């Protein structure tokens, strides 16, 4: 077993012992269920709460297509609460190692900075990606049950697009966790920046081409329209390039700045 594998295994063991393997997938399953259920029962909920007086309920709401509801799961649930929860679950990923001296301890072993960072990012990404995929799958099952079916190919392509955006979220949060020492600051910067990236999607095609969050929009388009936007390739390249930049900055920061606030 090489050192990357040893460190990645350590991360997985930590996730198990901190019960992250239970609560994070559960959160995404809950978020995945919420959108189709609320969309389906919204007319009934409004009627029960307000009696329906003075409210006009658009009858076409009930006729939403499955792909649209699934796209809303990504755009409304995962991109807002979901992103915040990923950030909160990862804000201490390097910061806590710095604070308790574990980073210094690990890096005095036969370990490169690259193995340490890749062990962190890949293990956390795989875990977060599985949690997101699980929530997405559950959402899909509810959508098929309550609305209409979604083409399986579109389902997979949209998920792959969305997971590129998740990859950037994980690497960006890791970078911020490396650079800053306060978990509050790490959470604040990550949430403001990443939600900011998501909010500006669609404002300008030029910005979309370099915005990793545009992969979320492309995923939604695949689900709603059933076609892949030709610009998606630029979004994918941008997401991968920005991910590489964040990993590079993380590596340089740990290598040059050292890790004990000298």
């Amino acid at each position: 077993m090489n050192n990357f594998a040893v460190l990645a295994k350590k991360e997985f063991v930590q996730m198990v012992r901190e019960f992250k393997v239970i609560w994070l997938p559960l959160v995404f399953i809950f978020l995945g269920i919420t959108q189709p259920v609320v969309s389906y029962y919204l007319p009934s909920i409004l009627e029960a709460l307000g009696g329906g007086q003075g409210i006009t309920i658009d009858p076409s709401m009930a006729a939403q297509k499955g792909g649209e509801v699934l796209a809303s799961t990504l755009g409304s649930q995962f991109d807002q609460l979901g992103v915040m929860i990923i950030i909160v679950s990862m804000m201490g990923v390097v910061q806590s190692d710095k604070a308790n001296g574990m980073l210094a301890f690990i890096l005095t072993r036969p370990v490169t900075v690259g193995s340490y960072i890749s062990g962190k990012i890949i293990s956390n990404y795989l875990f977060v990606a599985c949690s997101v995929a699980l929530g997405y799958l559950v959402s899909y099952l509810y959508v098929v049950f309550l609305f209409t079916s979604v083409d399986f190919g579109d389902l997979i392509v949209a998920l792959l697009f969305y997971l590129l955006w998740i990859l950037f979220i994980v690497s960006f949060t890791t970078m911020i966790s490396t650079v800053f020492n306060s978990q509050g600051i790490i959470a604040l910067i990550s949430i403001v920046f990443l939600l900011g990236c998501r909010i500006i999607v669609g404002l300008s095609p030029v910005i979309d081409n370099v915005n990793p969050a545009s992969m979320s929009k492309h995923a939604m388009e695949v689900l709603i329209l059933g076609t892949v936007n030709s610009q998606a390739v630029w979004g994918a390249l941008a997401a991968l390039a920005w991910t590489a930049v964040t990993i590079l900055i993380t590596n340089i920061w740990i290598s040059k700045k050292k890790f004990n606030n000298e």
Partner: protein
Amino acid sequence: MITLLSITDLEKSYSAKKILNGVNLEIKKGETLGFIGANGAGKTTTLNIITGILDSENGKVEINGLTKEDGIEYKKQFFFIPDTINVFNNVSGFDWIRFLMNLYGNDDKERLGKYINRFGMQESIKKPMGSYSYGMMHKVSLIAAFTINPPIIIMDEPLNGLDPNAVLVFKGLIKQYVEMGGTVFFSTHLLDVAEKICNTVAILKEGKIILHDEIQNIIGESSLESTFMEAQVYEGKTSVN
């Protein structure tokens, strides 16, 4: 004897304060060198520079002819036990040692079992480290170090928190380890223990080594404690640096 670790003209400052002011030191293979100095003398800084936690402004460190630029190969030459041991509270001592062994590519379970027994940790080794005392955590680090068996073990105050029984075991194991060709370099405040364990002593004062010689040459008819006190007052009494 072959020089295993050599430190040349090491300098380090924090802000405007010079912590290390040209430290020179050589540790031969098979030596047990006690690194002694008052608080703030620069012992931990020196160890942190050797292990790569800190960079020095000037100077050079070599272990077995390798420098920090050699990366992993350099790090494989030593096992460092820091003064403050931070561990994952919910991980057992056994899992922690296995994790460290994997990082060094060591899978000698038999040797691990032997040292667990020697330190009397058979019962507690499987318990979460959050339930360990400071001394028990040190024992776990020592078990890992002896099992991994690198060319040199570097320790920062390894005797802190150890009970008398563990100190005895420690002394015995250090001697055995050195007899088997190992080399030990550790800082300590416990002069009486250092006197019994070490065959060489280096005294650091204000970032400079003021005394470095074999223990018998240093203490003569006296004790390490009185020699240390004298050296603190009369710097450079028998300095070889």
